[in-house]
C-alpha cells in the first residue's frame, strides 16, 4: 500500500526535478498519442523538439521564431506568476492581452501616417494601460464586492474577444482595405512598427521587455519586502494579515501588474509579428502562459526556460503539421497534458511516498 507522508518542507531537489520529469512523461504520452494518430512517434517528437533548432533544413527559419513566440509567453507568465504566488488567480490574461493590443493599435492608427519618434513609446504606454485597466475590473470587483476574480477575469476574456471582433469590422477597419475585416498594417508603419532589432534572431522590443520584466520580477520577489508579502499571503493568508499585509492592496498590485504585462505582450504582438488587428488576432498566448508559469515553478528564471520550451512546442508543432500532417489540435492536447503531468508529479515535492503495510482493522 502506498502512503503519502507530508514533508516538513518542500523538497528542493524535486522542486526543480518535477518540471523535467513532467516534460519527459509528456513526451512519452505524446508519443503514444501521435502513434494513435498513425504517425511515427519518434519522428514526431524529434520534429517538435529537435528539428526547429538543429535541423539544417528548418533551423534557419525556425530559430528566430523561438524568441518571437517565447517573448509574449514569458512576458505574460512572469506577470501571472506573481499573482499565483499570492493566491490571486488572474486567468483572464488572454483578455488583457487583447485589450492591450487594441489600445496600442488605437494609438498607432490615430497618428497614421505621421512620423514621430514618440509614437511607439506612446503605444507601449497605451498597451500597458489597456491591460492594466482591463485587469482592474476583477481587482476592484474583488476588493470592493468580494467577487471571485477567477470567474470575472475569465468571463472578461469573452467580452474582450467580442470587442476585438467589433473593432476589426468596425472602427479600426482599414478604410483602404476594400471592406475586408482587419485594421491597417501597423508593422509597415515605420513610426509604430515593432521591428526585429537584430536581423534573423527574432529579437524584437517585446522580447527585450520580457527580459526586463523577468529581472524586475526576480528582484521584487527575492530582494524586496513586496515579494515577501506576496509569498506570505499565498502560503499563510492569516499570518499575512497579522504581519500587516493589506490584502486589497496586494490584489490590486498583483492583478494590475499581470494585466499590464499581458497588455504589453498584446501591443508588441500587434505591432510586430501579428502585423494588424484582425478577428483572429489572439492566439491563446494568455492561456498557454498559465502553463508556462506553472512549468517554470512560478520562478522568473524557470519561466524563461519554460517559455522557451513552450515556444518550441508551438514551432515544432507547426513543423510537424506541415511535414507529417499532424493535426494542430494535437499540439494543444500535448500542452494540456504537460500541465496535467506537472500537477501530478508535483506531489513528489510536497510529500514523501512511503510503502507501508496496512494494519488489519
Amino acid at each position, binding site marked *: 500500500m502506498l502512503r*503519502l507522508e*507530508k514533508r516538513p518542507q518542500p523538497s528542493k531537489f524535486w522542486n526543480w526535478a518535477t518540471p523535467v520529469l513532467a516534460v519527459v512523461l509528456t513526451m512519452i504520452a505524446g508519443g503514444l498519442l501521435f502513434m494513435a494518430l498513425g504517425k511515427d512517434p519518434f519522428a514526431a517528437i524529434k520534429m517538435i523538439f529537435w528539428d526547429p533548432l538543429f535541423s539544417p533544413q528548418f533551423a534557419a527559419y525556425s530559430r528566430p521564431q523561438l524568441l518571437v513566440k517565447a517573448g509574449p509567453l514569458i512576458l505574460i507568465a512572469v506577470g501571472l506568476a506573481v499573482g499565483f504566488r499570492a493566491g490571486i*488567480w488572474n*486567468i483572464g490574461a488572454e483578455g488583457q492581452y487583447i485589450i492591450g493590443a487594441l489600445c496600442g493599435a488605437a494609438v498607432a492608427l490615430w497618428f497614421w501616417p505621421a512620423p514621430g519618434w514618440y509614437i511607439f513609446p506612446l503605444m507601449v504606454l497605451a498597451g500597458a494601460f489597456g491591460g492594466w485597466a482591463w485587469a482592474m475590473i476583477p481587482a476592484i*470587483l474583488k476588493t*470592493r*464586492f*468580494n*467577487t*471571485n476574480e*477567477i*470567474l*470575472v477575469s*475569465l*468571463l*472578461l*476574456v*469573452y*467580452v474582450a474577444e*467580442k*470587442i476585438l*471582433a*467589433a473593432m476589426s*469590422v*468596425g472602427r479600426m477597419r482599414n478604410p483602404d482595405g476594400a471592406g475586408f475585416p482587419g485594421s491597417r498594417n501597423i508593422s509597415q508603419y515605420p513610426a509604430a512598427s515593432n521591428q526585429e532589432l537584430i536581423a534573423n534572431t527574432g529579437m524584437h522590443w517585446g522580447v527585450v521587455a520580457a527580459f526586463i520584466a523577468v529581472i524586475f520580477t526576480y528582484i521584487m520577489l527575492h530582494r524586496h519586502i513586496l515579494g515577501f508579502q506576496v509569498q506570505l499571503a499565498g502560503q499563510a493568508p492569516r499570518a499575512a494579515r497579522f504581519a500587516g499585509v493589506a490584502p486589497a492592496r496586494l490584489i490590486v498590485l498583483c492583478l494590475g501588474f499581470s494585466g499590464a504585462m499581458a497588455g504589453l505582450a498584446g501591443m508588441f504582438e500587434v505591432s510586430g509579428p501579428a502585423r494588424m488587428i484582425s478577428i483572429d488576432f489572439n492566439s491563446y498566448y494568455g*492561456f498557454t502562459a*498559465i*502553463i508556462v508559469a*506553472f512549468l517554470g515553478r512560478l520562478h522568473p528564471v524557470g519561466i524563461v526556460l519554460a517559455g522557451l520550451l513552450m515556444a518550441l512546442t508551438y514551432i515544432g508543432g507547426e513543423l510537424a503539421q506541415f511535414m507529417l500532417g499532424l*493535426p*494542430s*489540435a*494535437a*499540439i*494543444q*492536447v*500535448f*500542452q*494540456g*497534458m504537460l*500541465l*496535467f503531468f506537472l*500537477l*501530478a508529479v*508535483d*506531489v513528489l515535492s*510536497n*510529500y514523501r511516498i512511503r510503502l507501508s503495510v496496512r494494519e488489519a482493522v
Partner: protein
Amino acid sequence: MDFSSINPVVLMAALMVAATPILLAAIGELVVEKAGVLNLGVEGMMITGAVVGFAVAVTTRNPYLGMLAAMGGGAAMSLVFGILTQLLKANQVASGLALTLFGLGFSALVGQGYVGISPPRTAKLNFGFLSDLPVIGPILFRHDPMVYASIAIVAGVWYWLNYTRGGRILRAVGENHDAAHALGYRVLRVRMLAIMFGGACAGMGGAYLSLIRVPQWTEGMTAGAGWIALALVVFASWRPWRALLGAYLFGGIVVLQLNLQAAGFRIPVEYLAMSPYLITILVLVIMSSGRARKSLAAPGSLTKPFHAAG
C-alpha cells in the same frame, strides 16, 4: 428595427432549451462544491461531452447513446481531476484550468472529422392535449426529453442533498472534512464520487449543446458556457432550485439577445453577444457583495485539500 418579429411564446419556449446545457453543468458542479471541491474544469468537461456525444450519436444514429457516452466522457475527464486533486493533492484551481485547456485541445482533435455533419434528430415529446394547449403547450410541453430530464435531476439532487443519509454525509464532508473524517466517513471516496457526478452532468450538458441546441459540432462551441455554469452555482447560493431559476433567467437573456440580433436591433451584433457575459459578472457582483453575501453559505471546506494525518 422590427420588434413585432419577436414572438414572446417562441421566446419562452426557446428559453428552456437555451438554459438546459448550463443547468445540467451547474447542478453537477453544485454537488461537487457541496462536497467541498471546486472544479474549474466544467468548460473542458462540457466540450469533451459535446464532442464525444456527437461522435457516438453520429456513429450509432442514436442521440441517447450519444448522451450516455457524453456522460461517460465527462466523468472520465473529471476522474483525472479527482486523481490529481484528491489523491495527488494538486491545487484545485490549477487542476481545473488544466482540465479546461486539455479538454479544448482534445475535443478539437477528436472533432476534426465531424465538422459540418448533422447529428440524428432528437424527437420532441408529445403530451397529448397538454401539448396542444395554446401558449402553455409550446412553452412547456413540446420539448425534447432532456429538458424534462434536467428538471428531474434538479429535483433529485435537491431531495437527495436534503432528505437522505447520503446527502447529509456529502454536506458534512463539504462543510468540515476533518469532522467528517473523525466520524468515520470516507472523505476522499465521497469527493471522488461527487466529482464524477459533476463530470457526467457537465458532459451531458455539452452533448445537449452539440446534439440538440445547436445542433452541430464546431470547435470551441461551448464558448464559456462552463464558466457561466460556475457563476450560476454562486448565484444559486448552492441551492438546486435557485440554480434552475438562474439558468432560466440566463436562458431568457441569451434568447432575447439572439432575437434582438435577428430583428436588426441598432446595436452591433458583437455588443449584444457580449451581454450574457456582462450580465453574469453583474450578477456575481450583486450576489457576493454586502447583505446578499451573508445568505450565500458557501460550503466550509470549499477548495481546501484533505490529507488524513497518520
